[in-house]
């Protein structure tokens, strides 16, 4: 039996509840954090901060699934948004990037992946989370809406905007202008 399949018991002590949450969700949260941030260290910090928040508010974390998972995902996305704000302030004072260099054939796939990740990171955190949950984790719009506490139509709207933005960045020259869905 996987740890993620363990049921959460509402009658457990706070320590037991936290341990159950950790066992059930740390892998999933780590994957989501990696996809959201694209960096191993930052992803680890995000997972830790998410569980610290859960520990501080253990009484407010829903005792049943998928409420607990949704709570954790929302906290992770909000923390990601806070990070993005801090990084935006840092970028204002950062030195400009060096000019691009021509990549060799061996480096081309790595640079392509880096470009895709950069394009994904350019999306707002909530929209980025929707793209990741839908395109990489294969969740439906209804599931994503339930996880993020929003409506399916809003999820679909975010998906459409994100796809258009990603296509503009990644598929430039191969796409045709299209109307708003």
């Amino acid at each position: 039996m996987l740890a993620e399949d363990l049921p959460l018991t509402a009658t457990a002590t706070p320590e037991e509840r936290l341990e159950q949450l950790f066992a059930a969700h740390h892998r999933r949260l780590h994957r989501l954090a990696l996809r959201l941030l694209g960096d191993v260290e930052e992803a680890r910090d995000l997972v830790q901060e998410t569980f610290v928040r859960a520990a501080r508010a253990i009484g407010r974390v829903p005792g049943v699934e998928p409420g607990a998972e949704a709570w954790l995902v929302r906290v992770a996305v909000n923390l990601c948004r806070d990070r993005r704000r801090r990084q935006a302030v840092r970028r204002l004072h950062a030195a400009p990037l060096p000019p691009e260099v021509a990549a060799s054939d061996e480096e081309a796939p790595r640079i392509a992946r880096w470009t895709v990740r950069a394009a994904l990171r350019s999306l707002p955190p909530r929209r980025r989370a929707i793209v990741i949950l839908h395109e990489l984790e294969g969740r439906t719009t209804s599931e994503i809406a339930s996880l993020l506490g929003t409506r399916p139509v809003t999820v679909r709207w975010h998906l459409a905007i994100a796809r258009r933005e990603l296509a503009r960045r990644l598929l430039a020259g191969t796409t045709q202008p299209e109307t708003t869905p």
Partner: protein
Amino acid sequence: MTQSSRDDRLRALLRDADPAAGAPPLPPADLARIRRAAHAALVAPLRSFGWRPLAWAAVAALVLLAVGLAALGRRERATLAPQTTVAAAAARPSAPVASDAAAAPTVAAAPVAAPAAGATPRADRQTSHPTAPFPRTRPIRHPRPAAASAAVAAVAAAPPRQIQLTTPGGTRIVWVLEPSPGR
């Protein structure tokens, strides 16, 4: 390129660049560190929960005590206010305000209490001396015009006098009045 093919291509690009695709899980050391941090954050509020209600109760008791004392003081002041008196005492006991009151140890405040000549004390008033024309203390009143003119004339010939005021809080105020015929 149609929209579906565009979405398929985007999906392929995203999956190819998925940072979590080949990433190893969190190492046990990191897991232990995250777990410790979370449990520390869980224990901290539990520990602080014990003293917080006591602290809040103590603060509430202090506030209630302060409010109660303030209300009590205000009530005492309100009951004392009508009894606020002007205690007037002559600087010297020989104020010749009236012929029969020459030996009175105290007299009333000058413009208010100086009696016309021949004034007699009322028997029902509590006085400091049997022959004193007025009691030691009395409420402040505005004088009548006729009495005031007589009082001013009497004060003009009188030696310096003192007016002693006592506030409900206990502060004593002493005014020394110098007679001035020009006023």
